[in-house]
């Protein structure tokens, strides 16, 4: 061991190893768990194994045989006893709405039944839904251990009666419009940050060193300030009884009863997120601008180029690596943004990550949350690879 450590390769790798193991265990393993969860769901399969075995042989057209009813009622009662029935019913309900109450009610009533001639009649008398093939198909679908249904759901797709994948009718689409909105908002914020950040970076790059350092600090203040503090600031400024509205009323620009709603909507999300992400645009552009020798612009001017000409033909092309880095960084950060839209976005300013949080914490549809998360992760990884190509991950710097 000590001998091997004398080799530089082995020593370098041994230094990197502890952190690699740590990241794999505390960070990568969770991501893998999430990806697994998005396609693997054994809940119903474990609770009703025999029913599902019988249903797999069933043709799916007419109501299944008496044997299926008998096994199903036994397994439902067993699940009720070990308190897993509620979760099983919820899973089935996600395939076919309305079945949760049918399952819960049936199990409650069936417990009181001792002897029956026909489990089929008993169940159908509790709910006629048991007589429909659709109900049993839903149970069979919910019983798939490996399933694509979370992804279908997350992309607003569904299976029709023949099992073909089709798009949901427009009024029932939720996630595709949200994904589109997230991408559009992220793009808008990126453009906004570029428009605000580029001239700022230029000013700092042109300033004498001492002043440049001071200006850079001004950019870094928001970068270091707690996200929640900055979000609170925007609430204080923009709410209807807030500072900006008060100012506008005091200046007589708007009437007291016509205060503008600038927060708890998309405007709030865009303004607050631009504020949060602007430093991530300014810093990479500035660090590229700093390396451009001022001689090039003087040379262009001495050759007769006007300032706009020289800027467009000489300066701007050289800043493109910084513009690319800043834009990609801002875009990547904004498509995964959660806190700010959740606090100042209201209804209309929600993004895809808010939907993930909703399914994690409120609807408890963790399979769907995992599928949405995996799709978002896919987008980020694609952009990250792009970033690596354009900028190089090694060159990532802080400030």
């Amino acid at each position, binding site marked *: 061991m000590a001998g091997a450590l004398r080799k*530089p*390769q082995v020593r*370098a790798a041994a*230094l*990197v*190893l502890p*952190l*690699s193991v*740590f*990241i*794999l265990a*505390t*960070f990568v*393993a*969770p*991501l*893998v*768990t*999430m990806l697994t*969860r998005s396609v693997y769901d054994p809940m119903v399969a474990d609770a009703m194994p025999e029913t599902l075995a019988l249903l797999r042989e069933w043709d799916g057209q007419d109501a299944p045989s008496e044997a299926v009813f008998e096994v199903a009622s036994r397994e439902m009662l067993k699940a009720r006893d070990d308190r897993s029935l509620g979760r099983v019913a919820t899973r089935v309900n996600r395939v076919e709405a309305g079945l949760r109450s049918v399952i819960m009610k049936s199990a409650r009533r069936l417990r009181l039944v001792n002897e029956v001639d026909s489990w089929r009649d008993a169940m159908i008398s509790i709910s006629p839904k048991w007589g429909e093939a659709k109900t049993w198909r839903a149970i069979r679908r919910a019983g798939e251990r490996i399933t694509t249904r979370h992804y279908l759901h997350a992309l607003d797709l569904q299976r029709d009666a023949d099992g073909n994948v089709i798009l949901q009718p427009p009024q029932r689409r939720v996630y595709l419009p949200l994904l589109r909105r997230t991408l559009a908002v992220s793009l808008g914020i990126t453009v906004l940050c570029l428009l605000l950040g580029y*001239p700022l970076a230029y000013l700092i790059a042109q300033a004498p060193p001492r002043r440049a350092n001071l200006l850079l*600090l*001004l950019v*870094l*203040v*928001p*970068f270091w*300030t*707690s996200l*929640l*503090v900055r*979000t*609170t*600031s*925007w609430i*204080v*400024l923009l709410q209807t009884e807030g*500072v900006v509205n008060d100012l506008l009323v005091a200046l007589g620009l708007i009437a007291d009863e016509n205060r503008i709603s600038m927060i708890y909507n998309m405007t709030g999300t865009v303004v607050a997120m631009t*504020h949060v992400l*602007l*430093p991530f645009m300014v810093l990479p552009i500035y660090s590229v601008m700093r390396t451009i020798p001022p001689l090039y612009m003087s040379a262009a001017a001495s050759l007769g180029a006007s*300032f706009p000409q020289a800027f467009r033909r000489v300066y701007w092309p050289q800043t493109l690596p910084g513009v690319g880095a800043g834009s990609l960084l801002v875009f*990547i950060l904004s498509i*995964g*943004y959660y*806190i700010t839209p959740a*606090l100042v976005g209201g209804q209309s300013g929600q993004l895809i*990550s808010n939907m*993930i*949080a909703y399914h*994690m914490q409120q609807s408890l549809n*963790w399979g769907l949350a995992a599928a949405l*998360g995996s799709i*978002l*992760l896919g987008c*980020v990884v694609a952009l990250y690879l792009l970033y*690596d190509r354009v900028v190089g*991950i090694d060159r990532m710097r*802080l*400030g």
Partner: protein
Amino acid sequence: MTVSGGGWERAGRVSHLAFCAAVFLFLIAPILVIIPLSFNVEPYFTFTEGMLRLDPEAYSLRWYRTVAEDEGWRRALANSLIIGIAATALATALGTLAALGLASPAMPGRPLAMSLLISPMVTPVIISAAGMFFFYSKMGLAQTHLGLVLAHAALGTPFVVITVTATLAGFDPNLTRASASLGAGPVRTFARVQLPIIAPGVVSGALFAFATSFDEVVTVLFMGGLDQRTVPRQMWSGIREEISPAILAVATFLIAFALVFMLVVERLRRRAGG
């Protein structure tokens, strides 16, 4: 022609300056506006007439007292410090070691290792937090301090790796060789030769890691229970539920904290020549 050209140029320069001043205002004003409002004697989020008249009666420390006397905020601060310090210690130790390895030209598979180690920083935290919730629940680490320490340490390590690697970029490997040839072992070489050189990077990285943990709310929302409420978690419910100016007092405290951290990191960066 030269006159009009100069005129245009001046107009351009002035409008550029005015534009930049407006952007700086946009960056800084929202943060500054919180500070005077936190001294408001009234439970409002806006300037009262008394405040505008600079009437001392309109200002008070009442919200600071509220926060200082509140059991919830006190526990939140304790939790934030415990989790933050433990996560920082873990992240700094592991991150510094890894950076030393990454900076060595002999390191095999450097780009791959770098991508792995940086990944917690570029993954949207909502995704990390969702995955951690699933995985840490399975391991029995949800709703424990240990779970949050591990989560925050994972999120903080990339900063340590990046800052320490940056200070090592200018490190002359001959120095370690010289130290070794003079009979120092690897541990002694590290302590006496490398550590003093990379110290600014290590401290900056640690400050970044601590700031990350101290500001992190999503993993706390997903994995923390009532006993793991941190300062940002407490602010989160403060903003969502009972929005009171006490939040502004906490915010002012956090701004002061951020300024101190920023100035220290900038000093260190300049000293490291980064």
